[in-house]
């Protein structure tokens, strides 16, 4: 056996003090396999050691929350004995190294998190951040990531119904690929991961274990160098077909009552799945490594325990059910192996060839996982930028075209057309609107789903940015008529050992916390991805938020498209006209400066509740929230979606560029028939919601009186072509 040297410890990413703790838990030196297990269990990824302290401050409860953070995914009640199960997760680093497979296996991983709890996945989402459009790597990364997400989700037959995409230089060396899955289960049939029942069989199902994804540092070390083979890849190849079979087989098994506990094998594979199951159940587990289905010969216990081969699950079954369970997996042509049992030793004991190869106490290893209170400094928020501080450009029509054809606002159709967004026959709002809407199969209910985050806002003022991200998802759901239920998050940040980065994290969490509380909109699941940093340059803080909302009657749904000519256009909410961090400032002035718009959560709630009630009462014919790019962009998007123009005129003391492009929060544009306009205005007054009649739909241009007039055709041209043009290989077609 190799001796554990300082170098080996360092290669495993354990600090000296962490290694001291290993020695004191074991009362001896670990062997190589045990060290490997400590290293992955105590990695940032599995232990959340830098973030735990702060994540605990987020609100996680509401009467409709069935299961908050801590399990594979969050669970909320959606009535009629049904639950929505959802989570978002990052696959940033693998996607940068190998965009297709990295993104594909990211989708595979998040799907497993959801169906492991008993849900049939009904929708996928993806939140993507790439470097600058003209960075030499960007095109290759966009094309690979999008193909990979599509390749996996399409093959699984789960519709990918929406997402978000940003381009910014802060992601040049660290792209973000965050994938979200939403599934539906019966509230009576939700599966958890706590192992129980001494003597119960521990069962492995799915694909075989290979040497995939065993982390790089250990690969380079002596033990694996003796066969002079090529350096083994650290990226996994996804097999969506195997996952589709695994999904169907698991759901078939879940219809029985054979399962005691189940857990997917994600990061750190067999190690983290078995430890988590044992730790949650307060039991021990004995595993016989020889029984693990292996793809390659001569695999060591170290390799088997640390492999990140995809499309695998671990379960504890009721005794006596093994044979019937095996039949199901055989029908789906998947491996099924009893590899161990639940014990009362409180220890994880691994054997191979009849010998014990690792023996670790479960609870101490989990309880003693490091938790750090890392030093942090608060980001000082910049001063606001008033409209009067920015001199307007002469031609605001041209400014609108520039913005509509900018990397921030241009259509993402090139992306979502590569995703099957209709399979399963329940997508009643396709990508392109505020939130996607997917019917619960066989019912008249539907879920609205969105992901949002404005990293520029978060960079300027993490607290306001975090608040804004939560509020924007809430607003996007509201704009479809849905009642927002809960969120999942994917916290993407730089190196937490730098106090200013840690300060960004703390700030975003604080803002999110306030918003979640004020909007009664808890966090039920999430994921943290730190160290997104190259050569000391971190990404913009990016707390991607995925929100879901319930539409209890699917015909009470609004879309952004103008529906017919001659309807009244109304503006909900107040406009202060600040331009800090706006797209206008970025695209027209070339500045990313100032404070982001202020989020007032009381106003947010009041305006949103008014909009939702108006949609439910059937008075609203179209609805769109106002976000990136401000009012003029919102109106343009509604005109493009409906292929109908509008003529508006806004009563305000503000200069035109502020009216058109300020990104004040808590605002929406709604339309209504001419006859219903008065009613809405009266209702708004009763609710103390600012509502202004700003014009009428019609004709084939967007006209803002005394400011601009742009034809839908010109608008569509710049909006539709930016991304396809970016993605076209120079010199061809």
């Amino acid at each position, binding site marked *: 056996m190799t001796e554990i040297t300082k170098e080996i410890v360092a290669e495993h990413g354990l600090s000296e003090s962490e290694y001291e703790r290993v020695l004191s838990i074991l009362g001896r030196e670990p062997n190589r396999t045990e060290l490997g297990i400590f290293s992955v269990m105590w990695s940032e990824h599995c232990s959340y050691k830098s973030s735990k302290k702060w994540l605990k401050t987020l609100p996680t409860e509401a009467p409709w929350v069935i299961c908050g953070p801590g399990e594979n995914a969050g669970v909320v009640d959606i009535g009629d004995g049904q639950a929505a199960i959802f989570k978002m997760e990052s696959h940033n680093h693998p996607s940068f190294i190998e965009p297709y497979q990295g993104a594909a296996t990211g989708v595979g991983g998040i799907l497993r998190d959801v169906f492991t709890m008993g849900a049939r996945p009904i929708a996928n989402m993806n939140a993507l951040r790439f470097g600058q459009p003209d960075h030499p790597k960007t095109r290759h990364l966009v094309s690979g990531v999008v193909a990979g997400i599509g390749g996996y989700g399409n093959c*699984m*037959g789960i519709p990918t119904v929406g997402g978000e995409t940003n381009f910014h230089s802060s992601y040049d060396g660290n792209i973000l690929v965050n994938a979200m899955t939403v599934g539906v289960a019966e509230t009576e049939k939700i599966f958890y991961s706590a192992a129980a029942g001494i003597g119960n069989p521990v069962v492995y199902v799915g694909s075989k274990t290979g040497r995939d994804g065993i982390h790089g540092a250990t690969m380079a070390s002596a033990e694996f160098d003796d066969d002079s083979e090529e350096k083994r890849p650290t990226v996994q190849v996804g097999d969506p077909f195997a996952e589709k079979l695994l999904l169907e087989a698991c759901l078939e098994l879940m219809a029985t009552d054979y399962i005691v506990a189940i857990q997917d094998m994600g990061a750190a594979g067999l190690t983290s799945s078995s430890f988590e199951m044992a730790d949650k159940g307060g039991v021990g587990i004995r595993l016989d490594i020889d029984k693990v289905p292996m793809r390659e010969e001569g695999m060591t216990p170290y390799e088997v325990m640390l492999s990140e081969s995809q499309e695998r699950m671990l379960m504890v079954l009721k005794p006596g059910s093994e044979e019937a369970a095996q039949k199901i997996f055989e029908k789906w042509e998947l491996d099924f192996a009893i590899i161990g049992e639940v014990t009362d030793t409180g220890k994880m004991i691994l054997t191979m060839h009849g010998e014990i190869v690792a023996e670790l106490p479960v609870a101490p290893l989990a309880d003693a996982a490091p938790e750090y209170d890392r030093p942090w400094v608060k980001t000082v928020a910049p001063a606001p930028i008033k409209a009067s501080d920015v001199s307007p450009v002469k031609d605001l029509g041209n400014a609108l075209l520039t913005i509509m054809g900018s990397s921030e606002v241009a259509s993402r159709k090139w992306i979502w057309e590569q995703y099957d967004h209709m399979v399963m*026959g329940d997508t009643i709002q396709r990508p392109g609107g505020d939130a996607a809407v997917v019917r619960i199969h066989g019912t008249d209910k539907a879920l609205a789903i969105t992901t949002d985050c404005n990293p520029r806002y978060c960079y300027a003022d993490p607290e306001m940015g975090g608040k804004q991200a939560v509020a924007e998802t809430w607003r996007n759901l509201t704009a479809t008529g849905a009642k927002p239920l809960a969120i999942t998050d994917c916290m993407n940040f730089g190196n937490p050992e730098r106090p200013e980065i840690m300060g960004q994290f703390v700030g975003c969490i604080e803002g999110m916390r306030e918003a979640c509380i004020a909007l009664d909109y808890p966090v039920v699941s999430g994921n943290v991805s730190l160290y997104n940093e190259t050569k000391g340059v971190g990404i913009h803080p990016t707390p991607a938020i995925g929100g879901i909302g319930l539409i209890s009657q699917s015909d009470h749904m609004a879309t952004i498209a103008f529906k017919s000519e001659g309807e009244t256009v109304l503006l909900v909410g107040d406009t202060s006209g600040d331009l800090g961090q706006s797209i206008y400032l970025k695209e027209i002035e070339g500045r990313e400066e100032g404070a982001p718009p202020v989020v007032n959560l009381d106003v947010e709630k009041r305006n949103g509740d008014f909009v939702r009630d108006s949609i439910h009462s059937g008075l609203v014919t179209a609805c769109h929230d106002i976000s990136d790019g401000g009012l003029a962009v919102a109106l343009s998007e509604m005109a493009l979606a409906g292929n109908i123009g509008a003529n508006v005129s806004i009563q305000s003391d503000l200069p035109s560029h502020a009216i058109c492009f300020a990104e004040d929060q808590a605002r929406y544009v709604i339309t209504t028939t001419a006859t219903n306009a008065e009613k809405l205005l009266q209702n708004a007054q009763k609710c103390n919601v600012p509502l202004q009649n700003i014009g009428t739909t019609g004709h084939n241009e967007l006209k803002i009186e005394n400011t601009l007039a742009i034809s839908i055709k010109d608008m569509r041209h710049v909006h539709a072509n930016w991304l396809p043009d970016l993605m076209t290989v120079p010199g061809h077609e």
Partner: protein
Amino acid sequence: MKAAVIVFPGSNCDRDMKVAIEQSLGTSPIMVWHGDSELPDTDLIAVPGGFSYGDYLRCGAIAGNSPIMREVVKKAAAGTPILAVCNGFQVATETGMLPGALLRNANQKFICRDVHLKITSQNNRFSGAFKVDDVIRFPVAHHDGNYFADDETLSRLEDNGQIAFKYSDEDGTVSSKTNINGSCNNIAGIYNEAGNILGLMPHPERLISDQLGGTDGKLFFDNLINSLN
């Protein structure tokens, strides 16, 4: 009347097909698992979309060699109407029930969106809801829908009126601009010589209500079921 839907490992539009048939027929089709070697007697067999066997090797190749497809081929030869959609179309060409092959889309990308289709021949059973030259709208969702056949086969298909639909624009113009995936002659769907098999890349089962964005698929299935009743 009875209908069957074939389900392979990796099929994923089987439920959508079932729902569409149910909606027009009033009763559920029989879902036939690929491993079954017996096919019940039915008046319609649907081979649905998806990624049978992951579409590994070639789309539809492994499914095309499955025992159940040998039964489907026999029924087809005996005259049973077969509706082969998307992956089903690929499977049907692999078995030789339909001529030609489906290659990777010319732009190399998966394409999911609504497309316009021009009706190019009359087959009352499958397209009786529409007339020749009508333009309808169905969604596509495929990576390998680029129809290929040699020149001789193509002219035979054209001459015999075996081409069911061509990719067109809203006004029915068929051109290279409206050819979404590089298919020979813009072909989106074809009949066999006897006219009892329809293979098509677009998905009629996806547009069966206003809520889903359109009803051309509903018209298609209503007519199909009526004509078989």
